């Protein structure tokens, strides 16, 4: 579930910087996530259903999980847009210029040069976003998603074993983070394949 959310975020965070995106990133990053989740879930569901009814379809009951993933995607997308923008600005301009000088069309240039060249600069930022996203899922409890924190609270409340359950939940978050770190480390090593390590012979 979180994975889909992260992927959404990255997709939304396309490098196209336009006025529309500027509005999007400003608004999304200005409004607290909890508020956004409530807003997009309740207002969004309502809007979709009104649209469906207007088009002559029956109203549907939008699943909290789907809505939650969507909202996290929208939020992550706004932040990753800025991460990627910074990363693209970090590419030595000459490499882009060389691609242009050899007649690469814009789409090919983006795919073959810009994206791979910006990846090393983007990964630390994207990794941060991913780790924040895993914890943000706790906020989705508010729209009725059975995520880890909410489930823990219920279980702890029922059994009165607060300490055990919250420790277990903490451990689960920790494991998730550690596994993520290993995966991210691998991706980063691959992305930085053309760059000598700053620390020298490690």
């Amino acid at each position, binding site marked *: 579930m979180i994975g889909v959310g992260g992927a959404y975020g990255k997709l939304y965070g396309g490098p196209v910087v336009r006025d529309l995106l500027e509005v999007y990133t400003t608004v999304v990053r200005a409004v607290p996530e909890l508020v956004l989740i409530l807003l997009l879930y309740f207002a969004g569901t309502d809007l979709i259903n009104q649209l469906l009814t207007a088009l002559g379809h029956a109203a549907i009951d939008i699943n909290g999980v789907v809505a939650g993933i969507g909202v996290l995607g929208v939020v992550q997308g706004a932040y990753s847009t800025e991460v990627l923008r910074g990363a693209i600005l970090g590419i*030595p301009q*000459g*490499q882009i*210029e*060389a*691609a*242009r*000088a*050899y*007649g*690469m*069309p814009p789409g*090919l240039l983006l795919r*073959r*040069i810009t994206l*791979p*060249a910006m*990846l*090393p600069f983007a990964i630390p930022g994207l990794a941060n976003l991913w780790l924040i996203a895993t914890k943000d899922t706790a906020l989705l409890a508010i729209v009725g998603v059975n995520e880890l924190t909410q489930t823990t609270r219920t279980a702890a409340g029922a059994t009165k074993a607060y300490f055990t359950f919250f420790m277990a939940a903490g451990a689960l978050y920790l494991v998730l983070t550690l596994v993520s770190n290993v995966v991210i480390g691998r991706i980063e090593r691959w*992305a930085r*394949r*053309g*760059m*000598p390590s700053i620390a020298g012979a490690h």
Partner: protein
Amino acid sequence: MITQGTAPALKHTAQNGAAEAIHVENLHKRFGELHVLKGVSLSARDGEVIAIIGGSGSGKSTLLRCINCLENPTSGIVRVNGEEIRMKADSHGHTVPADRRQIERIRSKLGMVFQNFNLWSHMTLIENVIEVPVHVLGVKRETAIAGAEKLLARVGLAEKRDVYPAYLSGGQQQRAAIARALAINPRVMLFDEPTSALDPELIGEVLKVIGDLAREGRTMVLVTHEMKFAREVATHVVYLYNGLVEEEGPPEQIFGAPRSERLKQFLRNVG
């Protein structure tokens, strides 16, 4: 100045009748208030090596970059291979290429070598060399790799084919960049101060590669600070001063018997 620029070109036609690969006529380039090129004309026929020399800020790099539209000329004519680059005014009043595909087609016939090499850092040398042939020109990967290996061997980097550019010296990177430019089988090679970013002891190996290309009759336009080298390889030398062609002619004349006072001064300063 326009006529001064075209007159020698006509003389060349009479001499060898080779086709004109690059033709620049009355080129102007402004960066805002700054008027960098003030009506420059230039011609390169097949087999010619044109060396552009001049002081810092004379507009020599800008002139080279206008040929493949890395800088858009403000006005004037640029013809590559007899095909004139069509320009139009955009909504801000800047002159921009009218047809992106035309520019891309023209660019893919010009092998550009940059001052700072500009190899793609996420690709090994062999990947750098096959990138444009495979993805822009549509050459089959195996064919491109075979060609790239030959080119790398030619610039003395055969054993470095799987190394990333950051692990190489400046001289090696520039030689690889020359191989990358040759891989597109260019009609003309454009060199933008290819040795200016190199340590003195690395300049020789790069000049040797460029010199070999000149001797085998490749058409080249070369912006350089290496006067001795320009004298050796160039068939025609253009001295730019303050955005205008101050003097041009065969290297023996430019370096041996300069007429312009500014050129004499310039040659005293760099020599």
